[in-house]
């Protein structure tokens, strides 16, 4: 069955994916670069094409609190935010995951103040990796739309019941227009059944919801959360497979590799930069350099097993981090290193901090990273800032 094609932005794609997922309530506060998602959804609720309540909340903290209430009565909730807004709802993020409310949220990846910046990097969501949410990073508008629909199916799975964050690089994905295939509603309905919950706020069957525990039972609930996110690994793969069968598009589970079979040097990346790296890989391959790229799609659950399967033959591994944990290194690098350390193989590793606050990561930057990996100069500082406009003493 052929799908309709629309020329839309990443934000529009998210809104269309949300409408197809039939949420009951949207509670959101607008923030650059996510604003268009909220605008489109409020228009859809107004014109009746989306049968949902749109709550104009006064803050992101309220947006998340309302979403938990929605989820608690067994309804489907959606919210969206970015950057400072995500930080403002941080308390709610942990609450939602602990309460096992399968809320789906779009996050437009944007730098954190100070310096104030509306431009993209991934400091916001990576700074909240420990919030108990599943985190996916998409590469284009099509994946953004498809992942909203998949997100509900994964989050609401009985073994998972964990909130789900769909991350889009601010502006690069949120505001760029692409041709996007929009699935048919009847097939989405077949794929995504209505949400039912074990903990329903219900007059007929009163419950104490979101309670405290004594120290005796706290660890057990946290273990339960951990197990749920670990269990989501298989659910993510199954859901993607089912999605591919129905809609003809699959994204390959937790990571996606490109030309790494015989690669000597590989860059590990998240999100929209993947496309540019692929272009560089093709060019360098044509020049005889054996290079490849691995896109990490999910940071939670972290694809340790998949990464090790793909990486164990590679001599040189670089990680591009669009964030930094000041005083140490990029967050993705820390994760990749932990996986490598547990496996016992020891490639040459480098961390490239790039693209902070919307700084361009150019093809020549990426080529430079690959050359550093191929040359493998072990004396070099493992954490390099790429694209600095001034000299620094290192």
């Amino acid at each position, binding site marked *: 069955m052929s799908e309709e094609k629309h020329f839309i932005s990443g934000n529009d794609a998210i809104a269309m994916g949300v409408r197809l997922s039939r949420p009951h309530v949207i509670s959101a506060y607008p923030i650059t670069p996510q604003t268009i998602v909220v605008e489109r959804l409020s228009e859809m609720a107004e014109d009746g094409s989306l049968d949902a309540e749109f709550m104009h909340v006064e803050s992101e903290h309220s947006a998340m609190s309302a979403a938990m209430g929605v989820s608690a009565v067994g309804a489907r909730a959606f919210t969206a935010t970015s950057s400072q807004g995500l930080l403002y709802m941080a308390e709610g993020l942990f609450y939602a995951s*602990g309460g096992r409310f399968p809320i789906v949220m779009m996050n437009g990846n944007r730098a954190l103040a100070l310096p104030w910046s509306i431009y993209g990097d991934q400091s916001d969501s990576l700074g909240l990796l420990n919030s108990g949410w599943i985190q996916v990073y998409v590469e284009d508008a099509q994946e953004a739309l498809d992942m909203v629909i998949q997100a509900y199916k994964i989050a609401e799975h009985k073994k998972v019941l964990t909130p789900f964050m769909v991350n889009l690089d601010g502006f690069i994905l949120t505001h760029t227009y692409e041709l996007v295939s929009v699935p048919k509603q009847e097939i989405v309905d077949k794929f995504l059944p209505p949400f039912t919950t074990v903990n329903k706020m219900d007059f007929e069957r009163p419950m104490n919801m979101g309670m405290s525990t004594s120290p005796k039972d706290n660890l057990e609930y946290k273990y339960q959360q951990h197990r749920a996110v670990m269990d989501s690994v298989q659910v993510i793969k199954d859901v993607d497979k089912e999605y591919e069968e129905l809609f003809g598009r699959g994204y390959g589970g937790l990571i996606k590799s490109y030309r790494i079979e015989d690669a000597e040097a590989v860059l590990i990346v998240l999100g929209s930069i993947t496309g540019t790296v692929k272009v560089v890989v093709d060019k360098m391959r044509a020049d005889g350099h054996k290079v490849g790229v691995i896109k990490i799609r999910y940071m939670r659950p972290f694809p340790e097993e998949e990464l090790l399967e793909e990486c164990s033959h590679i001599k040189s591994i670089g990680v591009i981090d669009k964030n930094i944990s000041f005083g140490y290194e990029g967050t993705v690098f820390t994760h990749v290193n932990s996986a490598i350390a547990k496996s016992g193989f020891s490639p040459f590793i480098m961390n490239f901090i790039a693209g902070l606050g919307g700084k361009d990561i150019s093809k020549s930057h990426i080529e430079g990273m690959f050359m550093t990996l191929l040359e493998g100069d072990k004396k070099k500082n493992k954490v390099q800032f790429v694209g600095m406009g001034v000299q620094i003493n290192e």
Partner: protein
Amino acid sequence: MDRPKVKKWKRPTHIDEYSTGPSFEAGHLVDVHSGWRTFKPVVDLDKCIGCLKCYLVCPDGAVIRTEKKIDFEYDFCKGCGVCAKICPVDAITMIKETK
């Protein structure tokens, strides 16, 4: 008076016996006075004038009216001592619990 139902809490022995998230069936108690009580009120009915001030102030509704003025529902009394404090004729004494 309608007393809360007591439904004993059985500690889980396997992780799957825990609820999904800290949400539980409501509308019952899992224990009587939660084992907090260290002093219990005892009334001297010869002194008691039946003014029912203790009945009004008891935060747990654990003072009950009887034909012989008042008595206590020890299953739900947490031993706060408000009844002894309010009693205008010192008819209520708090006595240390011995177990």
